[in-house]
């Protein structure tokens, strides 16, 4: 995910301090991997250098010095373009799973037991995500659903493959 464009998008809501941007980024998109303050301020400096945002005057009240950042029209255009672009579908998704199945078949090993083990691991993760959803906020539900649907797609592939193992084994050994 693009951190600069995400911060720029948050900035489009209105002028913000780096502290507030980091807090909102972590809350909505961090998922246990919060941004470092140094990363936030370095990104804001680069955005300002590239004309995507401007830094306001230094504000100093009781605490440390703070600057409010404001998005520019160039920055708004970048965010709009980014939001409209599709994310490239990842053709390498689950390639390790695919590789293990094909290799197992080539070597005459038990691809079915591997698929069962993988299936159980996927279902265990789906159970954890379902439990997380039942306790979570609307955003947690949205995020967990995304992961659940991807895992479900893998499971369909696993079931479909498991049902055709004999045919696949003949194909890879010929």
């Amino acid at each position, binding site marked *: 995910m693009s951190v600069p464009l995400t911060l720029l998008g948050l900035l489009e809501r209105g002028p913000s301090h780096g502290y507030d941007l980091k807090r909102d980024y972590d809350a909505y998109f961090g998922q246990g991997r919060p941004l470092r303050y140094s990363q936030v301020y370095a990104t804001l400096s680069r955005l300002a250098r590239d004309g995507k945002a401007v830094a306001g005057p230094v504000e100093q009240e009781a605490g440390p010095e703070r600057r409010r950042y404001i998005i520019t029209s160039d920055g708004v255009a970048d965010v709009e373009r980014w939001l409209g672009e599709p994310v490239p579908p990842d053709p390498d998704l689950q390639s390790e799973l695919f590789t293990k199945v094909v290799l197992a078949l080539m070597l005459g090993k038990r691809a079915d037991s591997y698929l069962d083990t993988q299936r159980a691991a996927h279902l265990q993760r789906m159970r954890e995500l*379902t439990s997380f959803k039942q306790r979570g906020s609307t955003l947690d539900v949205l995020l967990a659903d995304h992961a659940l649907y991807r895992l479900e797609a893998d499971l369909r592939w696993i079931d479909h493959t498991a049902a055709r193992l004999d045919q696949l084994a003949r194909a890879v050994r010929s």
Partner: protein
Amino acid sequence: MTSIEKNAVTGNIIEARSLSLSFGSTPALRGASLAVRRGEIVAVMGPSGSGKSTLLHCLAGILVPGEGEVWFGGQRLDSLSDDRRSALRRMRFGSVFQSGQLVPELTAEENVALPLLLSGTRRGPAMAAARRWFPVLGLDGLERRRSGELSGGQAQRVALARGLVAEPEVLFADEPTGALDSVSGELVMDLLTAAVRERGTTVVLVTHDARVAAYADREVVVRDGKVGTLTGSQP
């Protein structure tokens, strides 16, 4: 140790032991075994025609296996007479299926009260017990509607209330969300799991949908009439 003692020790409320059953010359179960602990939610998965619904019907006492044994609470179920098995099903089991299970001539609350009425509970107490389920399942205000006036999700929640109204020890659910869209299905599963966990009801849930199975404590897979346990599932 007798089988009754063995069941008590293991804490299994219901158990299938080496069940085999054929329909004509077509085998549906070939030595299927499954033990479910009290209060557990178990998802039974498997490809179409694998025997998972047949297994559920044997556990629920609807079908009698050709070979093998079904035990419930230390009692052998498959050797009971039809009448005693039917009585046990009414009193101690609940069920919810995919769709089309409400009686169209009855109101929603009458549908929910049906298991109690069939067991001889007087109409007043039966209807009162049925109405208590409407707020629990988000069905307030729908008590007097008939099934044709309910959405698919509402009808399925009414069916769920009917499955639970007699406070069964085991709920058998066969594709309970199979006819619903994903949002309605999720609501039914959220409500089902919350209700049964609060009451300690055991659930045997047949589904082909991994998202539904993910509500269970563990999954088993039926293939070619036999039950396999997935590696990594919590026993």
